[in-house]
C-alpha cells in the first residue's frame, strides 16, 4: 500500500521583549534560578497581570509579514491545568479570538517548485517555568524565570506532505521571525521550538488518519528525523493491521525513536474561558498599518531583489534568502568583491559543502564574509585559479589566516607570466612526441579533446598554478603550428 503523509506544525516563538508578557520582570535566558520573577509570575493571590505592548506589536508585525488577517479584537483566555511549573494553575493564552488569523507561507521544495502552506492562526501566550527533575531529596526543583515569557504560537494547516517540507516551512518561519526581529530564533536555547502533528492515510483517501503529536522539537535536524521515524512507526502499525492511538509523543534523539508521554501529563481538558483579569485587546487599522509600514525587507522581497538587482537565478536567490544570516553573509561577500554571481556560486557551493560536511550553521562558519570576498577578488584579478582558490578556502576554514598570506605561503599564485608558461608548454611538447604525433594524425574536430592531455601535463608541471586560459591558448597555437 502506498501512504500519504500529513503534517501540521505548531511553532512556539519566544518574543524578544525586554520584560515579560504580564509583568515587569526581566525576560531572557540563562540567569540564576528564580532571579527574574515577580509576584505576578509566581501566581500570588491578588497579583494582577499588565499586558506588554511590545509583545502586541511583535505579534502584529508577524501577522502583517505573512499576509495574515490581524484581528482588531482579541481576547486572552485561561487554559487550566495543574503542573508545578505554572503556579497560577492556568496558562494565559488565546482561544476563540487570537491576535492573528488566516495567513500563508510559501516554501521552496527540492524540485525547486514553490508550495503554499496555510497558517491557521497565531496567538499570544505565556511560557511556563522549568521543572528540574534531578534529585533534590526526592523532590522536584522549580525555576520560574521563564514563567510569563511571551510566546507566539503559530499553527499551520495540515498542508505538509513529507519531513523535508516541514523543515523548509520551519526554516522559512525562522527566517521571517529573525528578519522582522521579533525573536532571536535561538533553537538551542528554546527560543523557537515546534510540535509536529503527524498522520498517514492511504494515497487517494480524503479522510485524515489518526494523528500523533510530537512535542518540543528544538532543531531543524530533529524535525526531519522525528517525523520520519514516526511515519515509519505508523506505517508498521497499520500494515500489521493495528490502529494508531491519538496521543502525545516525545522524540528521543539519542535512540532516534518516538515514545508516548505519560497519560497523566496528557489528561487534556483545559476548560478554556476568557481571562477575567485581562480586558479585550482592541487595535485599529492605523496601528496595524503603521507596523506594516515599518517592516524590514522580508525574505521573499530580498530574494526578488537578488534576482532583479544582482542578476541571480531564482533558485540561487531563494536559497540565499532562506535565512537572514545567510543572506547577510552573502551580501557582505558581494560588498567586498562586487561580483554577485561568483559570490553566490561560492556561498551555495564550496561554503555550503563545508557547512554540511562539518555540520555547522552559517553563524558558526570560520571563514568570514570579508575573507571570502577577498578570495573571490584574487580569482577575478587572475592571481589564483579556481583550484588554488579552493586550497585557500580550505586553509581559511581549517586554520584561519589572511587570504594573500595563504596564497604566498603555499605558492598558489597563478603563473600568468607568458614566458614562463611558454617554456613549460615547450617542455611538454618536446617530451611527448608520441602524443604530438597522435594529435597531428587526428581529424581537426577531434583535436580539441586531445588537448586535455597536454593541459594536464602543463598544469602538473606548474603545480596547478598556471593560468589555464593562457596554457590552453598557447598549446593550441604551438601544436597547430607543428601539424
Amino acid at each position: 500500500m502506498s501512504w500519504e503523509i500529513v503534517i501540521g506544525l505548531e511553532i512556539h516563538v519566544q518574543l524578544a521583549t525586554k520584560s515579560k508578557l504580564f509583568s515587569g520582570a526581566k525576560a531572557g535566558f540563562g540567569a540564576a534560578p528564580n532571579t527574574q520573577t515577580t509576584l505576578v509570575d509566581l501566581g500570588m493571590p491578588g497579583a494582577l497581570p499588565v499586558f506588554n505592548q511590545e509583545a502586541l506589536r511583535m505579534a502584529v508585525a508577524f501577522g502583517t509579514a505573512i499576509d495574515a488577517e490581524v484581528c482588531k479584537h482579541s481576547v486572552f483566555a485561561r487554559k487550566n491545568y495543574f503542573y508545578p511549573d505554572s503556579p497560577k494553575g492556568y496558562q494565559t493564552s488565546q482561544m476563540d479570538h487570537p491576535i492573528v488569523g488566516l495567513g500563508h507561507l510559501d516554501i521552496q521544495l527540492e524540485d525547486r517548485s514553490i508550495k503554499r502552506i496555510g497558517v491557521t492562526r497565531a496567538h499570544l501566550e505565556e511560557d511556563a517555568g522549568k521543572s528540574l527533575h534531578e534529585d533534590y531529596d526526592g523532590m522536584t526543583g522549580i525555576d520560574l524565570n521563564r514563567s510569563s515569557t511571551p510566546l507566539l504560537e503559530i499553527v499551520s494547516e495540515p498542508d505538509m506532505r513529507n519531513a523535508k517540507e516541514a523543515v523548509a516551512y520551519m526554516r522559512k518561519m525562522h527566517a521571517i521571525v529573525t528578519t522582522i526581529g521579533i525573536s532571536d530564533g535561538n533553537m538551542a536555547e528554546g527560543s523557537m521550538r515546534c510540535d509536529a502533528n503527524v498522520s498517514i492515510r492511504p494515497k487517494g483517501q480524503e479522510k485524515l488518519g489518526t494523528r500523533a503529536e510530537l512535542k518540543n522539537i528544538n532543531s531543524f535536524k530533529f524535525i526531519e528525523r522525528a517525523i520520519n521515524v514516526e511515519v515509519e512507526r505508523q506505517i508498521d502499525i497499520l500494515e500489521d493491521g493495528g490502529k494508531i492511538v491519538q496521543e502525545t509523543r516525545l522524540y528521543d534523539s539519542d535512540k532516534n525513536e518516538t515514545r508516548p508521554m505519560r497519560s497523566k501529563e496528557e489528561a487534556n481538558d483545559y476548560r478554556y474561558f476568557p481571562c477575567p483579569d485581562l480586558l479585550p485587546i482592541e487595535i485599529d487599522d492605523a496601528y496595524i498599518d503603521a507596523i506594516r509600514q515599518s517592516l524590514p525587507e522580508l525574505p521573499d522581497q530580498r530574494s526578488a531583489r537578488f534576482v532583479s538587482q544582482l542578476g541571480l537565478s531564482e533558485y540561487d536567490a531563494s536559497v540565499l534568502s532562506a535565512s537572514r544570516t545567510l543572506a547577510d553573509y552573502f551580501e557582505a561577500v558581494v560588498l567586498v568583491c562586487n561580483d554577485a554571481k561568483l559570490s553566490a556560486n561560492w556561498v551555495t557551493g564550496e561554503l555550503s559543502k563545508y557547512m554540511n560536511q562539518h555540520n555547522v550553521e552559517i553563524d558558526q562558519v570560520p571563514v568570514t564574509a570579508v575573507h571570502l570576498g577577498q578570495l573571490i577578488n584574487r580569482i577575478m584579478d587572475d592571481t589564483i585559479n579556481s583550484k588554488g582558490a579552493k586550497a585557500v578556502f580550505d586553509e581559511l576554514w581549517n586554520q584561519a589566516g589572511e587570504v594573500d598570506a595563504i596564497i604566498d605561503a603555499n605558492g598558489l599564485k597563478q603563473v600568468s607570466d607568458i614566458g614562463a608558461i611558454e617554456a613549460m608548454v615547450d617542455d611538454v611538447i618536446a617530451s611527448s612526441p608520441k602524443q604530438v604525433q597522435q594529435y597531428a594524425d587526428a581529424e581537426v574536430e577531434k583535436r580539441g579533446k586531445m588537448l586535455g592531455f597536454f593541459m594536464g601535463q602543463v598544469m602538473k608541471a606548474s603545480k596547478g598554478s598556471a593560468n589555464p586560459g593562457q596554457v590552453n591558448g598557447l598549446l593550441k597555437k604551438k601544436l597547430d603550428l607543428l601539424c
Partner: protein
Amino acid sequence: MALENADIEKIAVLARLQVTHSETNDYANSISSILSLMDQMQLVNTDGVEPLSNPHDATQRLRKDEVTCDNQREAFIAIAPATEDGLYLVPKVID
C-alpha cells in the same frame, strides 16, 4: 442539562478539589440547577448581539516594555516551604 455524579468526580479531579462521596450528590443537584437556568437563558433570542468577553466597557491597557522589578528572590524564597539552590522544591512530578 443535568450532571451525573461521575461528572462531578471528574471536575473535582481536574480542579484538584476533594469532594466526599456524600457531597457529590449535592453538587450534582445544585450545579445541574444552575445549568438549567443557563438552558432557560439560551432561549433568549441573541441574534445580532456580540458576545461579551468582559462586562466592563473598557479595553486592555498596555504597559511599556520596561524591566521595572529587581530580583526579589530572597524575599520570595523566605516564604516558600522548601527551597534548594534558589529553586522552589515541590513533590516529585515524575517518578
